[in-house]
Structures are given as C-alpha cells and as structure tokens.
C-alpha cells in the first residue's frame, strides 16, 4: 500500500477511524470504545506509514505482521482494515451481530487478512516472537508488531515472552504498550500497579522507548528507532488517554466496555467532525 507520512494527513485518517469506532460500537450496543480510541494514532501510523502490506494481497509473504494482542480493541482494528481496503466499510455497523465478519474479538476464520485470532489476554507477544523467529530462520526482512494493553501485561505470559524475546534477541519484533492507565475495574494503579514500567521492560532486556501515543511524529520516530535497533527487541510504551477524542469518554473507566447511546454517538460525532 502506498505510504502516507504527513502527520496532518494521518491525523485526518485518525478522525475518520474514530468516527467509525464510535458509530460501530454504538450500533452494536456493546463493545470496547475506550481502549479502541486510545490506540487510533498507533494503528493509523502503523498501517499507513510503517507496515509494508498490500490489501490486494493480504497473505503476501513479505508483509509486516501486526497482532492486536489486546483483542477487545477490535473496533479500531476493524476500522483500520476497512479504511485500508481489506474489508467493507459499509458493514462496520454489523459489529458483534450474528453472521458479521466483525466478530466481538478478532477472528481469523471470519477475516483471513488478520494475522491471528486474539481476545484472551497475554498471548499476542508470544505469537509475535514466534513469527519473528520464523522470519529470522527464513532470512526474511519483514517485521512483527504487537499491541498490548496496559492491563493485559498483568498476565504472567507477557513476562515469559519478554524474557524469551530478549534472550533469543528477536530484534524484528516490536511491542507497543497502550498505556492508557485504565482497565475494566478502574485505574491500573489501583488494580495492579505496573510502575516502574519502562524499568521493567529494560530489566527484561528490551530496548525501551516512551512516547506520547497520540503524537504521530513521535510515534513515527519511535517505530524508526525500533526498526534500527539490532540485537534486542523493542518495547514502545505509548502514553495514551482512554477514550481519546471524545470529551465525555476521555479518562473515564466507564467507557472501557460500555457502548454509547444514540444521543451520545451523535454528540461524539459532532466532536469528531
């Protein structure tokens, strides 16, 4: 897919992605808007500027891989895949409905262009590392990216994978933590504190960066640094705001897994116009 690198152009795409998220979750009457909205700049920067991929040939062997390990943020991934041309835009509103390809969590049986079915938290980083090893064995240059939730990394498997990635020097893998600081039951710091988070990843042997996860040039720079880092995998801790872009959702844990009403959708779309 031809790349778009201009931050202003990418920001316009982000707005469109946010409109899709709000609309589709509203139509579904259930789903996870907060953690989808927090990851919009991350996915948009990846899919339009960073990843080598081809919507006309989804299984092209040389493509870069993206795994949405925080599978409940499916709406942002669906909006991105649809806008890229992998799947229809017009049926996004069928999210979570019987027979829809837009299942509650990403399901490769319904969308073969996905790299993995996800939803059970804590597993995607291991998958990315397995893929990274395969690329290395094949002496291929493609890279693998995995987006992790902050609550998700409370899962022990993440740290098994973190040890593995550094030990095996899987430098073609990049993890991104969507650090929006809220999870279902409340603030991450009140549920199971992650801090000092960057120190943890560094101690586990990862090249670790911290960025504003809504700042597109900062994300572009971080992904470039990850790709240039050899001998160790990279973790980008993206500081984000849950519900970003919709004033009444921002920073409110209520919007982790609750859909907006039709009136709230209307209000949100006005803000995102």
């Amino acid at each position, binding site marked *: 897919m031809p790349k778009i690198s201009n931050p202003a152009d990418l920001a316009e795409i982000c707005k469109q992605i946010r409109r899709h998220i709000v609309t589709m979750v509203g139509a579904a009457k259930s789903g996870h808007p907060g953690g989808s909205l927090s990851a919009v700049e991350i996915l948009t920067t990846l899919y339009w500027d960073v990843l080598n991929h081809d919507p006309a040939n989804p299984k092209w062997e040389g493509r870069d891989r993206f795994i949405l390990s925080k599978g409940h943020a499916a709406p942002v991934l669906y909006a991105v895949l649809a806008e890229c041309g992998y799947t229809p835009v017009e049926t996004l509103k069928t999210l979570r409905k019987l027979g829809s390809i837009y299942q509650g969590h990403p399901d490769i049986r319904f969308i073969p262009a996905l790299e993995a*079915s996800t939803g059970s938290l804590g597993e995607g980083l*291991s998958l990315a590392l*397995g893929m990274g090893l*395969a*690329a290395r064995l*094949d002496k291929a240059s493609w890279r693998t990216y995995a987006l992790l939730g902050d609550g998700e990394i409370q899962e022990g*498997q993440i740290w*098994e994978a973190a040890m593995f990635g550094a030990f095996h020097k899987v430098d073609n893998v990049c993890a991104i933590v969507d650090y929006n600081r809220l999870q279902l039951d409340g603030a991450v710091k009140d549920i199971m504190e992650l801090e000092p988070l960057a120190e943890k990843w560094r101690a586990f042997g990862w090249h670790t960066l911290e960025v504003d996860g809504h700042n597109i040039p900062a994300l572009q720079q971080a992904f470039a640094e990850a790709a240039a880092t050899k001998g160790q995998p990279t973790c980008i801790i993206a500081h984000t705001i849950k519900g970003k872009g919709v004033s009444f959702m921002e920073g409110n844990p209520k919007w982790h897994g609750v859909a907006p009403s039709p009136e709230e959708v209307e209000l949100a779309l006005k803000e995102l116009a």
Partner: protein
Amino acid sequence: MPVNTKYEKKMGAATREAFGRTLAELGRENPDIVAGDADLTKSTMTTYFAKEFPDRLFECGIAEANMVAIGAGLAMAGKIPFVASFSAFVMTKGFEQLRCLVAYPNTNLKVVGTHSGISIGEDGPSQMSMEDLALACALPNFTVLSPADETATKWAVRWAAAHQGPVFIRTGRPKAPIVYEADARFEIGKAVEVAGGTDVTLVATGLLVAEALLAAGQLAEEGISARVLDIHTIKPLDEAALAKAAVETGALVVAEEHLVDSGLGVRVAQALARTAPAPVEFIGLDRFAESGSPDQLLDKYGLRAPQIAEAARRAVARKK
C-alpha cells in the same frame, strides 16, 4: 494383523525416545520442521533434534504457556513446530494457549506430551498426567494420538508432521513393550486389531495394549476368545471398529493409563451408546498415585493383564 494370543512381552524403546529419533529424522528431511522445549530436552528427547539443528530448537525455559504460543506463532508463519514437555505440564499450563491460539484458529502446531500416565514412576503425582487425553480431546480441530510402542510412535510423529492441523501425541517415559513389527502400517482414525477374538473385545491404548494382549493369552487358556483393539487414534475415534466389535463379540473392556472417568473409556461408551450398546467394563485410574517404580505402580494401581482379564470375565458374564 495375525491372531496373536501367544503374545510375549519384549521391551522396545520408550515412546519418547522414538519421538526424539523421529523428530531428528524429520529435521533432516524438511527444513521447516522446528521445535520448542521447556528445559526438558534431555527428557523429552528433543535433544537429538537440538544437537543436529541448534538454530531450529527454541529453548523456552520453564515456561510452557509461552512455549505453546511461540510454537503457534512459528506455525502461523509457515513453520511446522513440535513443542514438547511432560504431558502434565504442557497440557495444563499450556491449555489456554492451546485452546485460543491453536485449536480455535486451527493452527498447524504439534504438541508432544512425554512422561504420561503414572509410569513416569518415582517422581510422583505432580509430574504424572492422568488427564491429558481428556484435555486434548476437549480441543476442537485436534487429532489425538496415543501410540503403543516405538513403531507406532514413529508413525504418529511422521503422520503429525505431514498433517495440516493441530495434533497431540501422548508418549511415555519407560521402555515400552513391543507390539508391532517394524514394518507395521497404520491408518489415522483406524483401530488396529492386534489379536482376533469372538467372545469379548479388549480395547486399549498406549502401554495398556501390551497388557491387553497378555490378558487375551490368559483368557484363551480359559476358553474365552478375546479380540484386542489398539486405539492409537483417540480422536477421531474408530467408531466403526468399536461397533463391529460390540456386535461380533457382545462385550468389551476399555483399558487405559488415564483417569477412568474422562479418557478413552468414556469416549468408547459414548460411541457405543450411539451405535451398538453392549456391556463395557473399564480399567483406568481413579485417584492420584504415588512414587514407586513404573512396574510397581502399574501393579498397585491395577493396570495389568490380570485386572484386564478379570474385567473381561465380568463383561462376558453380563452378556444376555
């Protein structure tokens, strides 16, 4: 197969040894064969593969959940990974990953459980798997194999490598009695009639196949003609061979080194309830075992020919 009521027990290689040797052979034949292990290469016998192909054996440390998921990632990128650990660990600690990353998306991962059952011996119950077949059979898309000896294991590993889809292979620690000639042929999902008979059918898997053959010999001396079926494929189950056995012999015994309420026995009972109901007696485990030599434990927990023969007499007596 010939009628084989004069079975003599001769020991062959352990099934885990046969797995390790076959994996190394496959490694030479196909560069896409890779492996994962969790600090047990010298026990699971992936050590042979590791020595020949150090860059294709991924040591995961003592982290089975991650090992399963790494294997899934390798498979999704086109490799044919075999991940191995004790059955007790890979099937329990790795179960959720097997469910979501392997069974659900139908990932081409091969899982080999070693040291299965109580015949691991001295290590005791924490290392013994009595529920691995139940767990593996609870995973849609999985094929579940439980070979009886070295020859059957070689076939199982080769079949798994050639098959597109997830497979679990159950292997054991101790040397396994030889059941098959080296050139024996197997078919997936087809039970092998290792002894012919007309009065009762002994249905067995794994180490218990040899015990069932010994039991058939004991029963023959009493004038009871016992058929012995080796169920090397637990899933999909050979329902046709079981129904045929029920109709032709009228009674069955199922014998397994596994929890009696969740393994082969219940699957056989379910199949027969659908096709050809008949009296069935069950030999298996109903409690956690203990430390001891493999032979002592198989004796103490009743997984031997005399118990199978006794169950056969009960089954025959229940025939109308």
